[in-house]
């Protein structure tokens, strides 16, 4: 199949970018989206033009590195699919595709389709952990955890930290990411001791970098792991409780 790509090219964080048009020719319908970009890059190198920089690593949909806005959709048209898992069979011969980096002020562009997502690590530093020094843990089966609870924690923990939720959000908000990371720990018995400090800490660092949530739901639709916005509601509830509790105990 043959496609026309309009790709955002930007040489560095502080220089203006622009769209460039490239033809992707003779692409196999079985190849992945990123393999299609590999092919375009090989041709660019052949023509002595600098290849397009894009984020990728595992190409199995789990490391969370990849992410491209494809025709305005984070990770493209297929539901619950990261860019690396997108295959060309979902597109049609002759399609024109617009490729942009994640669009959010919390994710500044580094080069071409590559952005800086380090704000996510800072949200984790603000409390996204359970304090347990190595070697101090009791036997793993000492505390039974109901399967339902463990499953909810796992649903939240499935987040791969790709940032599609932020990129898809008209407000550039990071509520889905933050709430997934938060509720994974907040629903588990092990996470109770630090629950409210964790909640307040993470939410407030999130707000330093990202916009506000207005319940648009775009994040859930874009999430490659199908994480539910119910977690945002749970986070809001915990945050309100945290504001009262933390004030009382202060």
């Amino acid at each position, binding site marked *: 199949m043959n496609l026309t790509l309009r790709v955002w090219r930007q040489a*560095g964080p502080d220089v203006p970018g622009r769209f460039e048009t490239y033809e992707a020719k003779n692409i196999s319908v079985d190849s992945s989206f990123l393999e299609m970009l590999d092919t375009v890059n090989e041709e660019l190198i052949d023509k*002595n033009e600098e290849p397009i920089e894009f984020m990728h690593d595992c190409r199995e949909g789990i*490391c969370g590195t990849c992410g491209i806005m494809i025709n305005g959709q984070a990770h493209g048209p297929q539901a619950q699919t990261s860019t690396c*898992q997108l295959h060309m069979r979902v597109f049609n011969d002759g399609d024109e595709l617009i490729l942009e980096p994640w669009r959010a002020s919390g994710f500044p562009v580094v080069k071409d389709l590559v952005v800086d997502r380090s704000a996510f*690590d800072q949200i984790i530093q603000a409390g996204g952990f359970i304090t347990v020094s190595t070697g101090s843990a009791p036997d793993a089966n000492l505390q039974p955890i109901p399967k339902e609870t463990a499953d909810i924690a796992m649903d939240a923990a499935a987040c791969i930290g790709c940032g599609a939720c932020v990129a898809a959000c008209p407000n550039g908000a990071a509520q889905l990411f933050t709430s997934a990371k938060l509720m994974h720990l907040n629903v588990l018995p092990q996470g109770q001791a630090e629950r409210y400090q964790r909640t307040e800490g993470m939410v407030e660092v999130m707000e330093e970098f990202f916009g506000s949530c207005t319940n648009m739901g775009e994040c859930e639709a874009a999430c490659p792991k199908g994480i539910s916005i119910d977690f945002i509601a749970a986070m809001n509830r915990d945050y309100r409780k945290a504001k009262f509790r933390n004030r009382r105990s202060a």
Partner: protein
Amino acid sequence: MTVLDSRIPDGPLETKWENHKFNMRLVAPGNKRKFDIIVVGTGLAGASAAATLGELGYNVKAFTFHDSPRRAHSISAQGGINAAKSYHGDGDSVFRLFYDTVKGGDYRSREANVYRLADVSNNIIDQCVAQGVPFAREYGGFLDNRSFGGAQVARTFYARGQTGQQLLIGAYQALERQVALKTVEMHTDSEMLDVVVVDGKAAGIIVRNLKTGEISRHSAHAVVLATGGYSNVFYLSTNAMTCNVTAAWRAHRKGAYFGNPCYTQIHPTAIPSNDEFQSKLTLMSESLRNDGRIWVPNDPDETRAAADIPEEDRDYYLERKYPSYGNLAPRDISSRAAKVVVDEGRGIGPLKNGVYLDFAAAIERLGRDTVAERYSNLFEMYERITGENPFETPMRIYPAVHYTMGGLWVDYHLQTTVAGLFALGEANFSDHGANRLGASALMQGLADGYFVLPYTIGDYLAPLLGESKVDTSAAEFDTAEAEVRGRIDQFLSIKGTRSVDWFHRELGKIMWDYCGMERTREGLEKALSEIPALRDEFYADVRILGSGDTLNSSLEKAGRVADFFELGELMCRDALVREESCGGHFRAEHQTDDGEAQRDDSNFAHVTAWEWTGHPSTPNEHREKLEFSTLELAQRSYK
């Protein structure tokens, strides 16, 4: 040839580690902050080590070339992590895990190391549960287990099909806690390009920031490498695209011996490749073999769809050849068996390059819901890639390079042959011998990082109390930085005609053809003449555009592929001198009458460790004899 000292402590196997922990020197709590430690890599081994060292009070600098420590390739492990908890009373024990691992590795690993690994496996599960890792549970709230290849007990803990991700997130969160506490200084987008050695001791590293191109120097009292494996030397593997050998290889060139480089694991269940332009292979978890049955048609000219082929025309070859382990035969054996039937012309799929992994029987026995509960995310992943639904039609699978048991040679303390330079996880030559059992990589990475290195590094540091680290203005740092800059300038100035990927693909073909699932003297000798020729061509004709002072992934890849050329040659040389078959190393000249690996214990019960001598074609060979005092060396049988 020298004989290497593995520093295995005396005493009975069961108490070696316990006694050794007491005998090793300690650094007092108040003195730990006087020591700086560099940890390179933030996968399971690196993140757990950096977090634990930070907790203990050392000053840690952690480096990853990813944009976040959470992206390391450990994250891709699907199936699970082994531990000898024996929560199900099915006969498991520390000794059985030890036994299975040594046997699974075809008796080419150290008894003492493997016993320690099995022993601390239980602590890992405790630690991870306390961190909030959402392992699968039964309705009573207790932890669930499943079984993996090479074991007759269910000892594998798992978190849906994302065990690696969940364990890594646990270690990453522990690491970020230390970053917030300022015991760990985190350097993301930072690739280590050289180790600096001063007076025979590791003194620091040279790092390039991948986003700005800035080169920086970092010094410390000890350097820990947890930089993963080198499967990408084959170009097509299940490893993430950026996995590479550069950190380990640069350490090798500075004096760290490289152990058993030819030991490569070919995983039996990956999705077969489609065409020339495929960039990587995708693994389907070994856990699928719990319920999936592997078969090919009896007739090479079979044209019917899988579902239309009646039972009597199918060959469930693993169940036939290995009745007691069946579809859960170890990885090396299952992979080779698949190669045999495909070479016989009985492969399936459009390119006849795969075998069926069939869930029809499991769906009938357990119901669709139970099968979905266990494997739905894997089935979805498969469908996204191939466009086929495994509920309707059997999966097509074929072996793919997946893991490398070889790596930097380390002693019982995980120290390389360079004092103060340690290697953890897949980066070391490890505890897996010639073949790793499923769900043991996560176990080893976390064992090294949480429960071994934090003790052994204290023994190295304690006598250094009062000594300051080498200053980064030392001449050795000048030389190392100049070399790094020189290499970058060299790559950018070649201005040839072919891309880095082109060379990588060509190297991969040589490696797969001659140093892959089956090796012969003739093929390896051919590879040893082709690789240096291709390497020369690379240095004359590679084309890298752009500059060194911005993000430039072609430039990054060039350095990694350049190191793969040198490593690839060493792998072939190692495979050539090991005149036996063992585990993942199958020399066609050495097989039993029924086609199984034929070991030669009288001549090859040793680790081969290679020393860099200044040129990739002339390494020196050293050996460490493997002593088996507890287990009897036996021909491996899974029949």
